[in-house]
């Protein structure tokens, strides 16, 4: 997935941003040295947009979006402020002191106000940004750390070095406070103003045009996340990702097929049937809220969560105490308890660390954890736990990956590096779902959870690049294994990264290929010669047929997939469907 910034509309509508900045700058009590209001004179967003990297996409729905981005901005935006300052230090000093004990000078404290103009330029930002969008509540953008790296302050007092340095220091500190505290409020208000009166009209009227024009004037330093474009090249508004574009109509209403599939899924959960229908055009809502609360503690239960660097290390560390800590770490503790398979693989931690270190060393860059740990506890068997189920997927995949060959880890690591935006989490190699020894247990476990089909390889096929335990572990997705490098454009990948679509949907063009390639011999079952047996094979055949059917349908439905944004997916060779996002 990639972001295309349509930077020009932001420049056009800066008046409102200026007003909001002015009011927020004057809201807090000013130091006595500033005697007049601070007015934003000029605000130019520059020509280069900030660079965004998606780290995590948490909550994805028609009316919700939540993601963590890494933003860096090295553009030429500048901001000019105008105010008046008091030039008599005795005046500012005495004005704040009680008059009883003040020397009360006769005229030595008379004031002299000097107009001051400050220009902030050469702004360098880099930091982690959490963007949360909800249709009802607007957009919230929060910086996780202090994003301001450097800043150049030039003012009318540049010829006086003392004043220049003092201004630089003071403004830098004030800007840091502004970024961390005031900016989310500004953007939230702007978004409320933008979306609430217009959403109703936007949905009734022509959506795409209206939204493109009424893009909210977001503060330049935080607008990075606001202008992603979807796979169709149309600029998406942050949050209105799916509601105003051409394909939005498909999302606007539930597809009957999906409803039937959901019903079938529910049924299969209840009856322990192994049938897991693939869902198309669905968004799996991972346990964003609960997962968010457990950054570290989800290390085991949701090992794919939070693949930020700090978290990677933390989860690595947590893996070392896998079996013991699994019950305590799992936010969805019930899920852990009810998955004895997790605890039954004490070697899994080593597997984790091995795979993760290998992958990390190989990758040399941060893995973006796009895989939602959908394997949540499915004992309750409600359909809404689809995401949770799939979020729990990796976990059960992990222990079963114990038997995976080390070589597969390396391959996975390599494959992961080949991936584009959609990367598997660093531990994904370990997550390779292997059916070597745990098939029965896995299957048994999975029978409780309708496994969301994902592009995971069940067994560690030698050329499987993406070891992400995807929902399709039961599906014969040998095409993923077969052509990991196939740079086929997968236009739906873009959406899938948010959508948790089925792998079959993701790579319809390959499915024919894959269908032809499907052979039981490629299945992990048969490769391992495990006790999967005939039952699994039959089931696999059934799933393969279904996948082929779905692919055909998908092809009919989506003829106009664009491929320019799918390079990441293409890089993965389309071997695997985009993993479900990590919550």
């Amino acid at each position, binding site marked *: 997935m990639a972001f295309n910034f349509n930077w020009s509309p932001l420049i056009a509508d800066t008046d409102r941003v200026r007003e909001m900045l002015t009011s927020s700058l004057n809201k807090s009590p000013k130091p006595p040295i500033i005697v007049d209001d601070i007015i934003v004179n000029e605000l130019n967003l520059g020509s280069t947009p900030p660079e965004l990297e998606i780290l995590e996409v948490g909550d994805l729905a028609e009316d919700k979006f939540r993601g963590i981005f890494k933003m860096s901005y090295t553009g030429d935006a500048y901001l000019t402020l105008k105010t008046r300052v008091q030039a008599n*230090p*005795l005046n500012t000093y005495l004005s704040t*002191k*009680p008059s*009883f004990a003040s020397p009360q*000078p*006769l005229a030595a404290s*008379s004031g002299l*106000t*000097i107009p001051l103009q400050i220009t902030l330029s050469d702004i360098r930002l880099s930091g982690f940004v959490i963007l949360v969008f909800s249709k009802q509540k607007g957009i919230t953008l929060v910086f996780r750390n202090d994003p301001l790296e450097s800043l150049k302050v030039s003012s009318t007092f540049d010829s006086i070095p003392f004043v220049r340095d003092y201004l630089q220091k003071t403004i830098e500190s004030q800007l840091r406070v502004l970024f961390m505290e005031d900016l989310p409020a500004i953007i939230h208000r702007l978004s409320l103003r933008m979306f609430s009166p217009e959403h109703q009209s936007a949905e009734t009227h022509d959506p795409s045009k209206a939204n493109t024009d009424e893009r909210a004037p977001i503060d330049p330093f935080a607008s990075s996340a606001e202008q992603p474009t979807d796979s169709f090249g149309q600029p998406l508004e942050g949050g209105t990702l799916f509601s105003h574009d051409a394909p939005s109509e498909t999302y606007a209403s539930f597809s009957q097929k999906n409803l039937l599939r959901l019903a079938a899924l529910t049924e299969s959960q209840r009856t322990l049937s192994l049938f897991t229908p693939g869902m198309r055009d669905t968004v799996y809502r991972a346990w964003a809220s609960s997962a968010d609360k457990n950054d570290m503690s989800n290390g085991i239960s949701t090992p794919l969560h939070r693949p930020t660097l700090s978290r990677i290390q933390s989860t690595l560390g947590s893996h070392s105490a896998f079996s013991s800590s699994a019950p305590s770490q799992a936010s969805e503790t019930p899920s852990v308890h009810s998955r004895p398979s997790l605890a039954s693989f004490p070697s899994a931690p080593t597997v984790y660390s091995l795979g993760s270190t290998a992958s990390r060393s190989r990758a040399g860059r941060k893995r973006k954890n796009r895989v939602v740990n959908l394997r949540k506890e499915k004992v309750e068997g409600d359909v809404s736990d689809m995401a949770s189920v799939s979020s729990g997927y990796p976990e059960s995949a992990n222990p079963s990956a114990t038997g995976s060959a080390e070589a597969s880890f390396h391959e996975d690591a390599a494959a992961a590096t080949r991936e584009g935006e959609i990367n598997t989490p660093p531990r994904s190699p370990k997550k390779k779902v292997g059916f070597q020894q745990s098939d029965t247990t896995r299957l048994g476990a999975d029978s409780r959870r309708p496994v969301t089909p994902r592009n995971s390889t069940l067994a560690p096929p030698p050329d499987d690049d993406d070891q992400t335990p995807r929902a399709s572990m039961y599906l014969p997705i040998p095409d993923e294994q077969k052509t990991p490098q196939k740079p086929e454009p997968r236009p739906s990948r873009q959406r899938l990264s948010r959508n948790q679509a089925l792998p079959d949907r993701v790579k319809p063009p390959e499915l024919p290929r894959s269908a032809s390639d499907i052979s039981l011999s490629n299945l992990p079952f048969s490769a391992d010669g495990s006790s999967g047996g005939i039952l699994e094979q039959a089931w696999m055949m059934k799933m393969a047929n279904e996948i082929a059917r779905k692919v055909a349908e998908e092809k009919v439905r989506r003829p106009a997939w664009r491929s320019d944004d799918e390079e990441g997916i293409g890089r993965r060779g389309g071997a695997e469907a985009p993993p479900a996002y990590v919550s």
Partner: protein
Amino acid sequence: MLEFMDYVLTAFHAQSRWNRDNSYASLTATAANLLDFPVPNGIRLHVSALSSANFASSYTLGSRGVVDGSLSYLYTSLGLSIPSRSSALHLGNLVQGYRHLAALQQPENLRLNEILRNGKKEERRDALLYGRLYLPTSSLEALYLRRISATRLLRLACVSDGTLPNGGSILAVLQNDFGKYSTEYLYSTDSSLIGARGLYNFGYDPRSPDKPSGRTPAHPWDHQGGRLSAGAEAYFSPMNKSGGISTGLRFTTLPIHTGFPYTMTLTINPLMGNLSSSYAVKAGPNLAFCSRFDFNVYSYESDVMIGMELWQRQQPSTEVSWANALLRSDWKRAEADPNGVLKARVDNHGKVGLLWECRVKELLVSLGAGFDLKKRERMLGNVGVEPASDPPDAIIFGAYSLQGSRKQIVAECGYNLASK
């Protein structure tokens, strides 16, 4: 109107013969009295008492915030002989208006303060202690005055407040008055501010007394009918690395001057480029005008303010009107006691201030209002009333007059639009 404690302080200085006018800090006192009078904000009630000649207490209750108030106590080692009843207080002493400068004193004359102690003649060392506690804000003010010698006065002012840095500050001022000139040195613990002030009076030298009238002027500015004074001040704060200086000039007419008494001042702040000049004239026994012009040579900001003061005197009662008719016109008549004072000021930004101070039965009442003519929608800025009830049996009277005039106060509440 002076608060009771300030009035006691003035009486202390007067009784210990300390010339407060002979200081650079009071160079523009007349203009400040006529133009910078404080308009009361909200309702504030003062009840004060002079329990004895050495002890005074005062309580205030105000309506700033929900309610605010203060307690203050004062002790002097010099027995003060001021009237203890508010009805007996001369309003002219309380209301600071046009200030006629007191005559300069010779340091030798201050020997009248000597007392006999242990058989030796010693100068009085009068001391004054004053403390004030503001209740809702829990801040404490304290003042210690000590007349170290005939020409030296030490003043320590402290403020203790939790919201201040370091919890408060102390200001120490050492004032020297030598008649012809005076100096002050001050030090404040808050940011270690050091300051010095000095004032020099041209012309009449009290150290060599001379009859002012009839003497040919020794030099151009030796105007016997008036006094020219020049002074300067300088402050420096090593902590803030900041400071300020200013210099000023004042010419005022002495009481022997024929014609309208007037006062002209000019103060300059060379660092900031501020010029301020004022002119005050007493147009009659009851009327005084003042105007002030400020100008900044760097920023070209300017300000003009005009003020006026009108006294209302008690009319002589009808019983003695026959005696008044017998008075010859050229006889000097004593001024009747003032009943009330009206002060007004207006500046070029359209801000108008009004203050009416009068005596109502046993209460001394100040009514004030501030207008802003430029803001059409919020013309009435602040309205306030400050009744002050003075000493002992006036406490009973205070209660009575509060009750009696409660509807007055309540009615004034209705006009209290924006008390802040």
